[in-house]
C-alpha cells in the first residue's frame, strides 16, 4: 500500500476529529481528538486497512503543559505490512479515555500498566487494577511530579482466611 493513503482517507472521513497529520522519519502519525479514538480504531481495524494488531499503547507526561498527558497507540497491519501511530492528548483534570480492550485483547494489560504508572482511567476496561505496583501503593510513579527519592513502606503479605 502506498504511503499516505491511510492518513488521506482518515482526513477525508474524520476531517473534524483529526487535528494534525505528520510523518516524523517516515512514520505516519495521526493526532486525533480524544472522543474519536474508538470510532477511528474500529474503522482502521476493518478492511481495507486491516490494522489487526495493537503493537503498543503508552502514555507520555508533558508536565506543565495544558493538556498534560499524551496517549500513544501503535498499530500494525499484517496484511498490508503498514504501521500507524495515533496520538491524543488528555487534560489532567479529566483523565479518562475509552478503553480498547474490547477490540484488542492485549490492550487489557497495557492499559492496566498506564493506569498504574500514570493514573489514566480507561472507560469500559473490564478489570482496571494496578499491574506492576502492589495494592496500597500511593501515587503514580512515572508522573514527572512523583518525587524521585520517595520510598513507600512495604505492605505485609495478605493472609488467606
Amino acid at each position, binding site marked *: 500500500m502506498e504511503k499516505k493513503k491511510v492518513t488521506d482517507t482518515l482526513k477525508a472521513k474524520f476531517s473534524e476529529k483529526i487535528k494534525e497529520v505528520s510523518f516524523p522519519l517516515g512514520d505516519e502519525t495521526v493526532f486525533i481528538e480524544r472522543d474519536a479514538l474508538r470510532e477511528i480504531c474500529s474503522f482502521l481495524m476493518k478492511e481495507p486497512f486491516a490494522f489487526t494488531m495493537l503493537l503498543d499503547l503508552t502514555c507520555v507526561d508533558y508536565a506543565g503543559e495544558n493538556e498534560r498527558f499524551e496517549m500513544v497507540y501503535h498499530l500494525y497491519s499484517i496484511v498490508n505490512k503498514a504501521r500507524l501511530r495515533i496520538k491524543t492528548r488528555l487534560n489532567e483534570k479529566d483523565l479518562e479515555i475509552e478503553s480498547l480492550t474490547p477490540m484488542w485483547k492485549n490492550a487489557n494489560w497495557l492499559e492496566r500498566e498506564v493506569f498504574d504508572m500514570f493514573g489514566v482511567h480507561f472507560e469500559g476496561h473490564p478489570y482496571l487494577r494496578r499491574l506492576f*505496583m502492589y495494592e496500597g*501503593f500511593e501515587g503514580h*510513579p512515572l508522573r514527572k511530579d512523583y518525587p524521585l527519592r*520517595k*520510598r*513507600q513502606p*512495604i505492605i*505485609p503479605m495478605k493472609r488467606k482466611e
Partner: protein
Amino acid sequence: MAGGWITTKLNYVLGWGRKFSLFHYPFITACCGMEYMSAACAHWDFDRFGCGLTTFSPRQADLIMVVGTISQKEAPVLKTIYDQMCEPKWVLAVGACTLSGGIYDNYAVVQGIDNIIPVDVYIPGCPPRPETFLDGIVKLQQKIQNQEQEFRWKRRK
C-alpha cells in the same frame, strides 16, 4: 571446670557439624543467579565446602541465599520464606542489588534486604565472581564455627 570444658567442646563440635552441612535455599531473582549457577556447578563447586545440597523448601534449609534484586512487591514474600526456615538459620546476601538496591535507586526496589531480614554475610559485586561467592561461604563458615551454638537442651540463662 569439667562442665565448662564439655560445653566448649560441644559448641565446637556443633559448629563444625553445622558449617559443613549447610542446606541452602536459593532465592534467585536476577542475573546474579548466573554466578550462583557457576559457583554451584562443577567449575567452582561449592559442594567442596559442604554447601552442596540445594533444598527447594525453606523448611529444610539452614541457609538462604538471596541472589538478585528484591522489589517492594516481592519483599513480603522473602520475609515469609525467611520466617518459614527452622532455627538455626543464616542469610547470605549476594550482589549489589540485594545489598543496597544497586543501580535501582528507585520507587520499586528495596534498598538493601537488611531492611527486611537480618543478613550474616554480604557478598558485593555486580555480579560477584564465583570466587567471591566461595569466599563469602568460607566467611560464613568461620562465623558459624565461632558463634555460640543453639541447641534444644541448652540451659538458658
